[in-house]
């Protein structure tokens, strides 16, 4: 018995060691993957070097969450970055050099992310940093990047305070002011004919910003906000919240939650039959396959807004999506497609300007205007962000389906920050 017991303890300890080191291992893995990515990129590049004669390296740093609750988005972004880097190198690289990316995993943790930013800043060969994924981590990274004059571009942070940090900081997914104005005016009011609305949002930096901007949008178009309810991250029980929503007698509900909380709430709404009493609009963060997997049939007919949608009619974009899917077994979202566009447009801008220093790279990126990417037209405004139009999307037969393209909101007024950096 003692032998078995010892053996069991050993198994537990080894298992624990493996997982306890998950983050470190993940980070190491990412470094390894980064190396292998670099190798892949280098291999891909070597194949074309003979034709384009690339000499030297143009290095960039990439921070993204490959573990933790945003891992699916992080993995997707890494795939998109890799696809873009391969394309850039295949078509001549950056300034005649091989574009080389160093990937690091932040796990969605602001402290880790800011440490990685410092690490990149200390490396004189890194010319620009892409990432992190979410606004919370980017708000931690941005002041550090700005203070050290490191150009930083997050493909997915939507909090306007990120680019407002300074003139070295850029975002491109659009700002929540625009997105939430669209949600209020077009998804809720125009599509559903909403009058009395409820908002359930995550009680963190992202959720609170989302809530504040949706409140502004709802107020601007005359919607009556009957009930607003903050939800703690990781909440699983929504029965009390659903009872509270039910007695508030709203006609349309906005669910501003992340995947695990959002899926739990949608499932429990169906469980209690509340889904039949209210129209539902989802936050853009739920535009993932994982959300559909977690909710199954319960998410059918729900509405979501996104600035990016792949239609089979667009053959080139559809082929890109298929290539992307074959690499990571995920469908692209705005957050991940933006990562692809970020590399492609920055490479083009840097090449055009012949930028060789961080300051020159910043200047080149800030001049980007009218770039036609897979996510649409990209022009940086005065504060270093992009104003995006939205698609109105639903879920049908377990798949995302476009209801209306951006022309549905052709009269929409974008938010004016009134500031030029």
């Amino acid at each position, binding site marked *: 018995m003692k032998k078995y*017991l010892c053996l*069991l*303890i050993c198994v*537990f*300890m080894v*298992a*624990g060691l*493996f*997982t*306890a080191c*998950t983050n470190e291992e993940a980070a190491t893995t990412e470094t390894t993957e980064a190396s292998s990515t670099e190798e892949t990129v280098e291999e891909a590049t070597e194949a074309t070097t003979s034709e384009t004669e690339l000499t030297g390296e143009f290095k960039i740093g990439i921070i993204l969450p490959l*573990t933790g609750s945003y*891992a*699916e988005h992080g993995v997707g972004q890494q795939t998109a970055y890799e696809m873009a880097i391969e394309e850039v190198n295949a078509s001549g690289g950056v300034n005649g050099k091989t574009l080389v990316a160093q990937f690091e995993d932040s796990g969605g943790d602001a402290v880790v992310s800011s440490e990685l930013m410092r690490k990149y800043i200390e490396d004189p060969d890194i010319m620009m940093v892409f990432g992190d994924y979410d606004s919370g981590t980017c708000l931690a990274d941005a002041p550090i990047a700005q203070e050290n004059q490191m150009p930083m571009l997050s493909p997915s942070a939507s909090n306007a305070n990120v680019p407002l940090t300074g003139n070295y900081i850029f975002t491109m997914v659009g700002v929540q002011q625009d997105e939430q104005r669209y949600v209020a005016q077009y998804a809720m009011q125009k599509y559903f004919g909403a009058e009395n609305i409820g908002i359930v949002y995550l*009680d963190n930096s992202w959720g609170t910003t989302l809530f504040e901007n949706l409140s502004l949008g709802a107020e601007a178009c005359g919607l009556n906000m009957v009930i607003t*309810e*903050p*939800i*703690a991250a*990781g*909440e*699983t*029980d*929504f*029965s*009390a*919240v659903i*009872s*509270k929503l*039910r*007695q508030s007698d709203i006609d349309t509900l906005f669910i501003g939650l992340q*995947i*695990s909380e959002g*899926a*739990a709430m949608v*499932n*429990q709404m*169906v*469980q*209690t*039959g509340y889904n*039949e009493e209210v129209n539902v609009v989802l936050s853009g963060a739920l535009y993932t396959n*994982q959300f559909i*997997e*977690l*909710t*199954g049939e*319960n998410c059918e007919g729900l509405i979501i807004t996104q600035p990016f949608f792949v239609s089979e009619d667009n053959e080139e974009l559809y082929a890109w999506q298929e290539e992307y899917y074959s690499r990571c077994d995920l469908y692209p979202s705005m957050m991940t497609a933006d990562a692809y566009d970020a590399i492609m447009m920055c490479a083009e801008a840097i090449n055009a300007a012949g930028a060789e220093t961080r300051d020159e790279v910043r200047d080149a990126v800030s001049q980007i205007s009218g770039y036609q990417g897979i996510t649409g037209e990209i022009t940086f405004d005065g504060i270093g962000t992009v104003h995006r139009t939205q698609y109105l999307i639903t879920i049908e037969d377990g798949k995302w389906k476009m209801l209306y393209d951006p022309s549905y909101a052709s009269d929409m007024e974008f938010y004016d920050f009134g500031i030029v950096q």
Partner: protein
Amino acid sequence: MYIVEQLINGLCQGGIYALIAIGFTLVFGITGLVTFCYGEIVMMGAYGSYFVFQWVGLNVPLAMLGAFLFSAFIGFFVYKICYERFLAVPHQISLLCTIGMSTLLTNLAQLVFGLETKSMPMLMAGMNIQIGEIRITYLQILIIGVVVLLCLFLSWFLNKTRIGAALRSVKQDRVATELLGIDSSRVMMIGNCIGSALGGIAGILYCISYMSISPTLGTSVGRIGFSAAVLGGLVNIPWAAAGGVIIGILENLSIIWIPASFRSGIAYVFLIIVLIFLPQGIASRKKRTKL
């Protein structure tokens, strides 16, 4: 009517908490050792049921059996590793061991079952009883029914069976029990397994109620179970169950007056209040120890 509906929500949620608190109390009552890996045993039991659902389909009794057996199995090894060797030494050693075991079980679950949240099957979707403005779902009735049945069964088991008598005997005086020829270590192991198995049932009820399961659910569930059990001084089963129900009801009623994001703090406020005014639990005020 709205308050009544929230009361029913609280009763359902509190029932699950009560089951966790009962299991926790049973483990502490028999072994005399505090465990900090009970939430993880609950989580493991829930995963046991998840895989039964995956393999045999929507069979709730079989899934409960799977949760019961799997968590009892985990409880057996927890006993062997964290308790058996440390019965005669200061209790802090086994307590620290259970803290380590808690991390190990969570990590093991993350490794084996995956990091991501998984979806549990939906039972009786949209089926409910409407009484005036009050709506009670069939699932809530099922959960409350299972909890009540298990409590009755446990009461019968502890008071009317030979093993139950042995468990109560070990609780009262382990040395005297051994002098009667009863293998106290074996009895304690059985008690620990039964307490763990109850946690497994609570795990499946928790997960089918919220339709999701993740390797980290044990942390919050364990803390709530501990907070509820404190009302019974960690040894009194009825008061531990009452603690669970009270926390569940308070969590659900609180949402009427405070934002939902603050309600997770209710269990800890409850714990602090009980520790300040009833540090030995309600049982100690009545000058009797009841298993």
